[in-house]
C-alpha cells in the first residue's frame, strides 16, 4: 500500500479512486476545479468501460465468447493492454483476470479484506493474451476468459487525463493515480518533484521528473490479502496464475508515457531476477528495491 504522506495544498486536489488515491497538481492552481471536472469525467468513463468489479461494465458484457462491438474507449484500452502483452512477450497479460478471481481478488479490495474467509480455487495459468481477438471495434473474448486491464488501464488514464487537462486548460499538470504518474504541459522550472516510496519503512528519495515525463511503480507489497492462510498480492505471473515471488519489493520506472512506465515496471516484477538485465537492455530509468532493502539504480540519479 502506497502511503501518500504529501499534504493537500492549494495547487493540488486529492481524492480516493479505484482503491487508491488520485492526486491532481497544476501550475495554475486557479484552474483546479475545472481540471478536476475533466479528470473525474474521464476516470468515470474508463471505470465503466473496463472495471473488473462493475457487473455492468462494458468489458464484463464483452466477455461473452462471441464477437462483440465495443466503444472506441474500450477498444483503445484493450489495444493498449494487448500491445503491452506483445511488447513483454506475455509478461503483462490482460487475461490474468480469472487468476485473480481464483485467488480471491474478485471484488474491490476493501470488500475482499472485509470478508471472513477466502477460499482459493484451483490455480491455473492465464489463458494467454493471444486468445483475445481485437479487430477494429470487434472484440472476441473466449468463453471463460476474464480480462483484467488493471496493469495498463490506470496508467493509460493517467496519461489521458494529463494531456486532456493540459490541452484544454493550457497549463502544466501532474496526474497521479496511485503509483502511476503522468505529466503534460509546461511544468515547474526544475521539473516535477516526485517522492519515490512504496511502504513507510522503505527507503525514500525525491527525483525530478521533466514535464512530459511519466513514472510508475509496481509492488509486491501493495494490494495484499490473505486466502487459505496464504498472503497474496495483485501482480500475477501469467505463466503460473499466481502472484510473482517477492524477489523485489517494488520497481519504479520512468518513461515518456505512463503506460510504458507501468508496462516495464510490471514486466520487470514478473521477470524476477532477470529484471535488471531486461530493464537495462531497454535503457529504462529504473529504481529497484529488493526484499533486503537494497536499491538498484539504472540510469537513475544517486540518492
Amino acid at each position, binding site marked *: 500500500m502506497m*502511503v501518500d504522506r*504529501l499534504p493537500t495544498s492549494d495547487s493540488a486536489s486529492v481524492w480516493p479512486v479505484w482503491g487508491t488515491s488520485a492526486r491532481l*497538481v497544476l501550475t495554475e492552481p486557479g484552474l483546479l476545479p475545472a481540471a478536476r471536472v475533466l479528470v473525474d469525467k474521464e476516470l468515470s468513463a474508463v471505470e465503466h468501460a473496463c472495471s473488473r468489479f462493475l457487473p455492468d461494465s462494458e468489458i464484463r458484457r464483452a466477455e461473452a465468447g462471441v464477437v462483440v462491438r465495443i466503444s472506441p474507449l474500450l477498444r483503445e484500452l484493450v489495444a493498449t493492454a494487448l500491445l503491452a502483452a506483445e511488447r513483454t*512477450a506475455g509478461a503483462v497479460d490482460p487475461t490474468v483476470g480469472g487468476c485473480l478471481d481464483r485467488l480471491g481478488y474478485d471484488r474491490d479490495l476493501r470488500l475482499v479484506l472485509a470478508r471472513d474467509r477466502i477460499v482459493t480455487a484451483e490455480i491455473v495459468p492465464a489463458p494467454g493474451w493471444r486468445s483475445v481477438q481485437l479487430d477494429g471495434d470487434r472484440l472476441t473474448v473466449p468463453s471463460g476468459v476474464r480480462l483484467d486491464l488493471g496493469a495498463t488501464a490506470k496508467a493509460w488514464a493517467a496519461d489521458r487525463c494529463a494531456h486532456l487537462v493540459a490541452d484544454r486548460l493550457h497549463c502544466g499538470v501532474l496526474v497521479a493515480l496511485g503509483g502511476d504518474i503522468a505529466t503534460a504541459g509546461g511544468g515547474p522550472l526544475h521539473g*516535477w518533484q516526485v517522492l519515490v516510496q512504496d511502504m513507510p519503512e522503505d527507503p525514500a528519495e525525491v527525483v525530478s521528473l521533466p514535464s512530459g515525463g511519466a513514472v510508475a511503480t509496481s509492488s509486491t507489497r501493495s494490494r495484499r490479502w490473505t486466502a487459505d492462510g496464504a498472503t497474496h498480492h495483485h501482480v500475477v505471473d*501469467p505463466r503460473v496464475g499466481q502472484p510473482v515471488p517477492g524477489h523485489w519489493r517494488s520497481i519504479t520506472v520512468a518513461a515518456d508515457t505512463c503506460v*510504458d512506465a507501468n508496462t516495464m515496471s510490471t514486466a520487470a516484477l514478473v521477470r524476477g531476477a532477470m529484471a535488471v538485465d531486461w530493464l537495462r537492455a531497454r535503457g529504462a*530509468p529504473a529504481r529497484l528495491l529488493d526484499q533486503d532493502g537494497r536499491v538498484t539504480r539504472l*540510469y537513475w540519479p544517486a540518492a
Partner: protein
Amino acid sequence: MRTADRARRAARALTAALAAAGLLGTAGVAVAAANQDALTAGAGPGTAAQAQDGDDDSAEEGWLPSAPQIFGGFAAPHAQTGGS
C-alpha cells in the same frame, strides 16, 4: 525488426557511445544495446518460460520505449509514486 526500431536502437547506441566518451553530461540514457539480443534470446527463466506456445518475441526485442532524463530532486514533492 521494423525500420523505426532500427533507427531508435541506432540512436541509443550513438547516445551510449557519446556518454562513454564523456560527451554527455551523464550516461543516464546509455543502453547496452549490444546485449539486448543475447538477453532476449537467452532470456533465462523469465522470457523462455513465459513465452507461450507460438509466442513471438520479436516485438519485445524491438521495444525500446523512450524515456526522460531523471535527476535528483531537491524540493518538496508534488506527488508520490508507490505500488498501487
